[in-house]
């Protein structure tokens, strides 16, 4: 008896296709090798079913959206009919009519799905008139540019931000003709909760959301004879940049990439994997220190700037759990600015550090005030993988034909541990490779720790290390991070170490990477990085002799004073929104005591509403309206000491109604 008898099938364009647990017809059609156009479908997100491009004709049922129809055995489906073509054309023309069709100057050109579909449908003329007035382009974010005139309202960005990142920084607003995707209250993206991950731009089919570009600034520095320009490249870039030059995903183009960077005019080409090795050593020691001396655990990793901003906004009380290690990007930047001026005999102001990252949040990170001292930033410009590819194209280099070159020493030297950083689970594995040798004193023979590898967005693993067992949490996607962080907050988490990366699959899935609709891409890139590690001589950060030398010559002790100055940082409570206070009286006056009660998320949870209510009652009962001005305020960025109340500018932490009242009474007496 043949096993196929039990297989359920349906027919697509005359082909018999087996049904294998696919969630909808669209998945099945694509599996059958037919690429139906879509705008509002993304395999990681919920189904919206609004764009009406994925239409198919089902015998006996008529035309339906493939993305929202479950497969049923026996269905007879056609993907191309005269009617479907006509409907699709009208849909695309309607979108085009209200789209700013400036393709030649669009950041998404060549990767835009609208452009692609219009070309494939052979649309030569748009028969409809625009009904929209142009809206201003939002350039407030350090990481992204939002051009509402190119939005097709597919909502992919909205769903990613809320379903995967658990944030909801942007959402649909208004309706009908006025419908738009906007940050809260129509404010600018840079003012709100957005943590700069850029994943909304990665899923946006058009140029409505794109990574902010810094190419011009970098060319300018390269062409300025007074400047020495050095560059560092993150691990995830090398296995993805080839995609933009026709190479398969996951193929390491390290040699060609370094050659290209030298041809572009960079004076030194360094590897962020070098400082990733440094991060491993600093972070592993911080971790083991906490573990053995009873410090704050679990330790959260801190190399993802999207996660760091997220934690600052939503988990202020967990900031002491974040590793104080800077990210590898900032460590390398700090080292360059500290060491290179002397070594190269130049002034600090003439040294420009550029980094090439798979990430849009790194652009934001480089501009954090913690990383800019006396007007000099550790990292001056951050380019994405996409931007580097564009510069290579502009320079007319035939990328794949370049003779491979190698990174400059010493900061171009790394071990495999510093390379796998780009994969979700990579930081954990790198730290474990170090910790296990340090704890047991024995050589780790097989460095591969398969248990921490995987695709799931939330993984819990237990790893025996000598006498002890370490419990690790590995997450990607901030909604998953929220799940674990909530547990830690409630004291219900016995993990030792939690690795967090905002992007799907880790940095390899960053929003600065080449845009792709291939669902296997993440797997291939992940494998690409593990393969690079496998083919290397050294796999453990402690084996990086240039790092050892760096400690001897410059940094001193691991975790010591110098290391702290250059390699560690601190975090601060951050308000979710820039907003105004709510006036609850008839306004401030010079002779009034000014009271502000924080009603930000954290203080709210800790009962600030009760304080506010109480004070308002008091003012009314005692008829103090002329003497006391009360306001509800949004986050003093003191959340870990909340509830916070300020009385005439001085803040009361852990405030109670009584404490607030007595402070007010004191002020009234003084006046």
């Amino acid at each position, binding site marked *: 008896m043949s096993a196929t008898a039990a297989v359920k099938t349906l027919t697509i364009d005359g082909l018999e296709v087996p049904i294998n647990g696919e969630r909808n017809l669209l998945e099945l059609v694509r599996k059958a090798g037919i690429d139906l156009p879509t705008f509002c479908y993304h395999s990681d997100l919920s189904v919206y079913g609004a764009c009406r491009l994925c239409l198919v004709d089902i015998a006996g049922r008529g035309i339906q959206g493939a993305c929202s129809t479950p497969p049923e055995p026996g269905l007879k489906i056609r993907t191309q009919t005269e009617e479907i073509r006509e409907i699709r054309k009208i849909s695309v023309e309607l979108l085009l009519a209200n789209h700013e069709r400036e393709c030649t100057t669009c950041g998404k050109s060549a990767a835009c799905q609208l452009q692609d579909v219009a070309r494939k449908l052979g649309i030569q003329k748009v028969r409809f008139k625009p009904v929209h007035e142009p809206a201003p382009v939002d350039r407030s974010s350090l990481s992204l540019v939002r051009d509402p005139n190119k939005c097709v309202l597919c909502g992919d960005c909205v769903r990613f931000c*809320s379903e995967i990142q658990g*944030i*909801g*920084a*942007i*959402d*649909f*607003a*208004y*309706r009908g003709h006025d419908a738009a995707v*906007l*940050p*809260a*209250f*129509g404010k600018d993206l840079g003012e*709100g*909760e957005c943590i700069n991950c850029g994943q909304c731009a990665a899923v946006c089919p058009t140029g409505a959301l794109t990574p902010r570009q810094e190419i011009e600034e970098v060319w300018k520095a390269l062409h300025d004879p007074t400047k020495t320009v050095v560059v560092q490249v993150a691990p995830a870039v090398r296995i993805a940049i080839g995609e933009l030059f026709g190479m398969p995903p996951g193929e390491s183009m390290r040699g060609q990439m370094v050659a290209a960077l030298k041809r572009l005019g960079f004076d030194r080409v360094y590897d962020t994997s070098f400082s990733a090795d440094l991060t491993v050593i600093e972070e592993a020691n911080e971790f083991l220190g906490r573990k053995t001396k009873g410090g704050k655990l679990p330790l959260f990793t801190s190399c993802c700037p999207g996660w760091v901003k997220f934690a600052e906004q939503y988990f202020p009380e967990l900031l002491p759990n974040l590793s104080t290690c800077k990210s590898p990007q900032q460590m390398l930047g700090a080292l360059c600015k500290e060491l290179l001026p002397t070594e190269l005999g130049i002034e600090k102001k003439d040294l420009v550090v550029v980094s090439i990252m798979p990430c849009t949040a790194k652009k934001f990170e480089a501009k954090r005030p913690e990383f800019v001292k006396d007007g000099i930033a550790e990292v001056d410009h951050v380019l994405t993988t996409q931007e580097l590819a564009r510069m290579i194209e502009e320079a007319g280099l035939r990328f794949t034909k370049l003779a491979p070159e190698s990174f400059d020493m010493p900061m171009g030297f790394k071990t495999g541990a510093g390379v796998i950083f780009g994969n979700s689970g990579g930081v954990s594995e790198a730290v474990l490779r170090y910790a296990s040798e340090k704890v047991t004193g024995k050589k780790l023979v097989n460095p591969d720790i398969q248990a921490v590898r995987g695709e799931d967005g939330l993984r819990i693993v237990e790893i025996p290390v000598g006498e002890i067992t370490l419990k690790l949490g590995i997450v990607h996607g901030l909604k998953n991070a929220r799940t674990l962080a909530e547990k830690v907050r409630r004291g219900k988490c016995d993990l030792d170490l939690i690795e967090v990366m905002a992007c799907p699959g880790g940095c390899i899935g960053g929003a600065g990477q080449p845009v792709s609709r291939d669902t296997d891409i993440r797997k291939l890139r992940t494998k690409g990085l593990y393969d690079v590690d496998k083919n290397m001589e050294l796999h453990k950060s402690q084996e990086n002799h240039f790092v050892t030398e760096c400690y001897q010559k410059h940094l001193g002790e691991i975790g010591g004073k110098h290391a702290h100055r250059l390699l560690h940082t601190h975090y601060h409570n951050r308000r*979710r*929104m820039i*907003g*105004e*206070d*709510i*006036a*609850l*009286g*008839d306004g401030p006056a010079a002779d009034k005591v000014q009271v502000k009660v924080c*009603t*930000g*998320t954290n203080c*709210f949870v800790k009962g600030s*509403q009760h304080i*506010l*209510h109480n004070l*308002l*009652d008091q*003012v*009314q009962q005692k008829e103090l*309206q*002329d003497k006391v001005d*009360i306001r*509800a305020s*949004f986050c003093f960025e003191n959340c870990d000491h909340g509830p916070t109340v300020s009385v005439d500018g001085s803040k009361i932490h852990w405030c109670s109604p009584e404490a607030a009242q007595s402070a007010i009474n004191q002020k009234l007496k003084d006046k």
Partner: protein
Amino acid sequence: MRTKPKADCNGRKFVKVFTILEKHGHKPSRLVPILQAVQEEYRYLPKEVLTYVATALDISPARVYGVATFYSHFAIEPKGKHIVRLCDGTACHVKDSIPILDAIRKRLKLEGKKTTTDDMLFTVETVACLGACGLAPVVVVNDRVHGQVTPEAGVKLVEEIIAREQS
């Protein structure tokens, strides 16, 4: 002595928001009735109060804003003391309601997309059919319906209010 109704009033309104939230059990699913109740207090939905509601219900401010702007019933901007509504339903449109709108807006110096006067005295809006087509064209001033209005009569309605406010 200074009068202090405003001070009392703002504080009371905000305390009312607490009560509204409590009454609805801080349930995100009850966002629409909550917004409705808040609008009854404030006559519009102030941004800051919406942020507070978002915090209290633990939903993103962008989502609250999205819902608040979806229903045309909700107003995000404060409205004037007097509300003038012009019907632009089919019947009224056919009977030339637009020239009335233009005349009133001109008298009140409302330009472009503005619907509320700078002194917060008037908000002028159009609505789709007030169900009084027999009286077309119709103008509603503070819930009082005026039928068969001409542009001149419309302007006069507004001027009467201005005169009353100034006396």
